[in-house]
């Protein structure tokens, strides 16, 4: 996976914003996950069809961090989501 990739959310994965966290549910196996505020923002930008690079560009304006740190964190989160089949890589 690289920063130019766009991620897609499969039909069997749903999410809800509950207060400060986003709850993600994989309907295929009933497993759920929680994302904090930063993770939730990444999730939202994924759902709006942004590439990982576009997500970093957007978030660097919103959070006090550098591009390098953000790219590393976004890629790490994207990889974790991919491993759990909560996202797929768009063709």
């Amino acid at each position, binding site marked *: 996976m690289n920063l130019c990739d766009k991620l897609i959310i499969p039909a*069997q994965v749903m999410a*809800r914003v*509950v*207060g400060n*966290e986003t*709850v993600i549910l994989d309907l295929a196996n*009933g497993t*759920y996950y929680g994302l904090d505020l930063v993770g939730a923002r990444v999730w939202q930008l994924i759902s709006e069809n942004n590439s990982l690079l576009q997500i970093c560009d957007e978030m660097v304006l919103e959070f006090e961090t550098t591009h390098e740190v953000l790219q590393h964190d976004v890629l790490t989160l994207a990889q974790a989501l991919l491993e759990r089949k909560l996202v797929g890589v768009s063709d």
Partner: protein
Amino acid sequence: MRAWLAACVAGMPAKAVFPLLTSPEQLVTAAQAEDVVGLVNWRLQQVSFCSGISTVWTGAAPFAEFVQAFSIAAREEALSSMMIESESRGIIRLMAKAGIPSLMLKGSALAHWAYTQPHLRACSDVDLLVPSREDGEALSAQLTAKGYERVKTLGDLVAYELLCHRQVAGGWNLEVDIHWRLANSPLFANVFTFDELMKDSIELPKLAPGARGLGIVHAFIHACLHRALNLSTGTNDKLKWLYDLEVLMELFTPEQWKRLANLSVGKGVAGIVSDALHVAAATFGRELPAQWMGVMLRSQGNETLDARRLSDWRYMQRKSFESLPGFFQKIRWLGQRCFLSHEYLQQLYGKKEQSYIRLLLWRSSRLMLRCLQLSRIR
């Protein structure tokens, strides 16, 4: 606790005194009993709301502990909401394929248009209205082919619905209630026809393409009828149901208030609607439009049902009996009320091993107790 929860849900916690020495667990339990965990959590998460509330905090634990307890409980609500939403979408697709028209009812619809987020309206099942029992049977057959199990219900004059359920991933049990009348009692079963309701129905694009729910005025009257039937069986007002009314009132235009009053009068349910309006308004501190309340008040004296006696089980049963047309319908209704099936009684009382006679005796004793208690109260 209930008064504080109501004030909190309405966004005015300062209007009620926080119950002293209440722990976070106790408050969450009370909110769960009222089905408003999601709403309370949503309010507690609002920064301006929290800063107002935490300065006058009198709870038994720090305010943050209450916020944390509600966050955890609200997560469960959100998960359940997603499960139900996903299942509703599947059922809507199934019905579209089978050519069965339907309307989503109660929370299954309100969650997707009247509330800002669907999980704020707690739901435990999917409620659907179809045009006829035959359509209900057809849908039930489709659902059983998809892994649902049909649940035994009461006779056709006592329950105008079919129930199906199945277990989904994660051990969640999902129930689908297929109604072919708007209310589960001969008292209100024919107040509206399916065509009337469909004509005024609204799209639910946030739920699924092709999904439809009751129009706002019909949804309001339905909530009032549902409340009346709940009261008649000893189920008291939950904040969740009253808040549905509050949310709809918030959305009413002056024209819709007028239509609500006129339709309630025309359908002979002004007393029931007016009673629900008063209770919801008193709970959440809303002022009601005097003009339209007056219209309903003037009419309710001429109605067959006395809205002051909704909690009187014997009165409501008598009225149900009287509302049935013809001798044979009345006899069938009595039979269905008195002699429930063995399977249904086992489900109702959770006594799988008991014989039919023992369960009938158990039911009779409970009914007698209910009559005696009501007599004593009066």
